[in-house]
């Protein structure tokens, strides 16, 4: 067991820190916040992403053949942690979330096309899984892709398709065989968002961000948009989803409300006064311990992935513990900061109103990318071997 970072990792950490200090301005961070709230991706953001891509820091742990750097996965963890510590709201994980699936199931042509572009941030995917009637029951999806001549025609609707308005492609799950068993008639398509027949409608969320509904109306796509085997999409999707849950970025999201709370209690004058209560200290210390577990679960998953093991249940544990910790933190914080915690705007609102935003935002982690219910069932069945009904 080795809980430390190597000298190489620490050297890389210093390099990333120096880079972020030099290249991240308040302006570009504001641009990113604006983009999350529905604005177009700004020029500063694009330039920063390009610089990061140039250094090979997007998908850095991938094979060099696909534009990666063959880097230690721990370096990627370090990079993501530093990005979060610098409070850069840039989800580079999203850039490459689909990459493992493409590496695993794609044709040589698809790999050659997509992987280097993903790494450079030139191609970005929105995730086209969830449908209005489906929720966490992904496999019940109704969007249809019908073979037609040399390609397919797609009809249906997706929902909660975040970044659909600013992605170049959508990683689309659609039903290609309605007569097959639920999980067996599904395929995955890599569809350019500018294909005619795709309509994107915004859904505004509580913290102020944008997600979307995406409608497919006789969308005609070429055959080479199909990823992997026709009707074999479910199995590609499932494994990619599991890997997509690992990494430092999510853990950083889970613990960020705690870090905000701790900073406020340590550094703000009113916060310090509130923190002088031993009962407050006790509750915050409890959260601290729980935050360490979130971090350690991430480190455990990475240790396994690095050894070439696809964790049977550990990523699901991470995906229960972290989100529920995040929610618990915001609820506890609300009973420490009281009326300050509900100020959304205004000069007396701590951190410009970030506390209530963290509060309404925390829940997303508990159902996004697989609900905690689904995760618990996965742990019980895959991890502990408990029987199916």
């Amino acid at each position: 067991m080795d809980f430390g970072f190597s000298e190489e990792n620490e050297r890389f950490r210093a390099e990333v820190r120096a880079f972020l200090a030099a290249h991240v301005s308040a302006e570009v961070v504001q641009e990113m916040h604006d983009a999350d709230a529905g604005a177009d991706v700004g020029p500063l953001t694009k330039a920063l992403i390009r610089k990061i891509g140039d250094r090979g820091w997007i998908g850095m742990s991938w094979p060099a053949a696909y534009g990666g750097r063959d880097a230690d996965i721990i370096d990627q963890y370090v990079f993501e942690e530093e990005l979060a510590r610098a409070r850069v709201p840039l989800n580079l994980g999203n850039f490459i979330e689909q990459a493992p699936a493409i590496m695993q199931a794609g044709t040589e042509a698809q790999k050659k096309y997509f992987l280097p572009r993903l790494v450079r941030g030139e191609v970005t995917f929105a995730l086209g899984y969830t449908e209005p009637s489906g929720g966490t029951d992904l496999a019940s999806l109704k969007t249809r892709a019908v073979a037609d001549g040399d390609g397919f025609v797609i009809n249906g609707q997706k929902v909660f398709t975040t970044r659909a308005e600013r992605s170049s492609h959508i990683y689309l799950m659609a039903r290609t065989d309605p007569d097959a068993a639920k999980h067996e008639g599904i395929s995955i398509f890599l569809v350019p968002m500018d294909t005619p027949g795709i309509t994107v409608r915004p859904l505004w969320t509580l913290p102020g961000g944008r997600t979307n509904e995406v409608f497919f109306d006789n969308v005609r796509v070429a055959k080479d948009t199909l990823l992997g085997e026709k009707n074999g999409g479910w199995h590609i999707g499932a494994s990619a989803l599991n890997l997509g849950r690992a990494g430092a970025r999510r853990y950083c999201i889970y613990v960020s409300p705690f870090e905000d709370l701790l900073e406020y209690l340590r550094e703000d004058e009113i916060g310090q006064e509130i923190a002088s209560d031993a009962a407050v200290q006790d509750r915050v210390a409890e959260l601290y311990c729980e935050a360490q577990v979130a971090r350690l679960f991430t480190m455990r998953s990475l240790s396994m992935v690095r050894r070439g093991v696809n964790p049977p249940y550990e990523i699901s544990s991470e995906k229960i513990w972290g989100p529920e910790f995040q929610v618990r933190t915001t609820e506890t914080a609300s009973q420490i900061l009281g009326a300050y915690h509900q100020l959304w705007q205004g000069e007396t609102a701590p951190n410009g109103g970030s506390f209530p935003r963290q509060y309404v935002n925390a829940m997303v982690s508990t159902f996004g990318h697989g609900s905690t219910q689904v995760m618990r069932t996965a742990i019980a069945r895959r991890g502990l071997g408990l029987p199916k009904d």
Partner: protein
Amino acid sequence: MDVLLNDEEEMIRDSVRQFFDAECDMLRVRGIEDGEQRSDPELWRQLAELGWLGLALPAVYGGSEAPFTQLCLLFEEAGRALAPIPLHPHSVACLTLAEAVDRGDCGALAETLLSDACLGDCLLTWAWSERLPNIGPEAVGLLAVADGNGWRLHGQKRFVEAFELADYCLVAARTEATGTSDEGITLLLVDPRSDGVSSTAQLSLAGDYHSEVRFENVYVAGDAVVGRVDEGWALARPMLERAVVLNCALIVGATRRAAERAFDYAKERVAFGHPIGSFQAIQHTCADMITWVDGAELLTREAAWHIAQGLDAALPAAAAKAFTNERCQAVLREANQIHGGYAQVKEYDQQLWYRRAAAWSMRLGTSLEHRRTVARAIGLV
């Protein structure tokens, strides 16, 4: 002993609910949230006309003299309906004025205001907390320096509801520099439009506004005193207890509705070939939700009953608030979890209950502060 509603209470609950069902749909709630107005004047007028604004006030001012328990039911329903009106600060101030008059510690201004308040012609609010979000006597630091028959106010208040809408604000000030003790506090009626008063309204999670109010050498005349000079705590303590219990009633009412919506959704929504409400995990979550909100409701009503009976309500009010804050947040959280992604979407209604009830649970003292009160009352401190 019968903790259920009696016939009269059921009648009140039902008629208030019918009123809000008819007059306060979500379009109206969203209309206020998204519009320029911060309260619905038509709804307020209707409530006044139906006599609800005077429900627990003395008959001599046009009220119905109903016990505080019945007012508590009105608040549960107002919370359930998310009524976009400043019922809470107004009622807290009115009850305190009535109490002061009843004790013979109040002048003619209060009586006039009470009559107008029952008619809906005068809106009152109150101001207590300042730098810290506490509601103990230590929260009051605003200085009132004697000036002839009156006072000069210097300082600030925070977290004041409906300040810009109100005709008068009942302000707690220190007329004696006794630091943080419960002595030397005086309650004063201040006109928000007085010289030297300024305020900034800050948007809350609930979608309403909490004002920061600054007092710069604000003159208040001698007849503005409510209660006794320097002995304001005698009146403030029951005021705060009432405020806390009515706040709990709002939270409980809204949370119960949020839970019911989740139960309904669980019956309709199908996943994996079954309504999600048939899954054991969802069923057990729902069982916890109803248990928690029921618990909060019983604690709240018991505290209201103590107040109605004239018993010491410090302990039951603090217990109700400490529990309600946390458990109702938990109910809201689980209701969101059942709704999944839709709980996050603004155009979907669930968030209206969620945001408001959650924000209310952050007001009028944290669970930690109320547990301190409990610990004191049960002899641990």
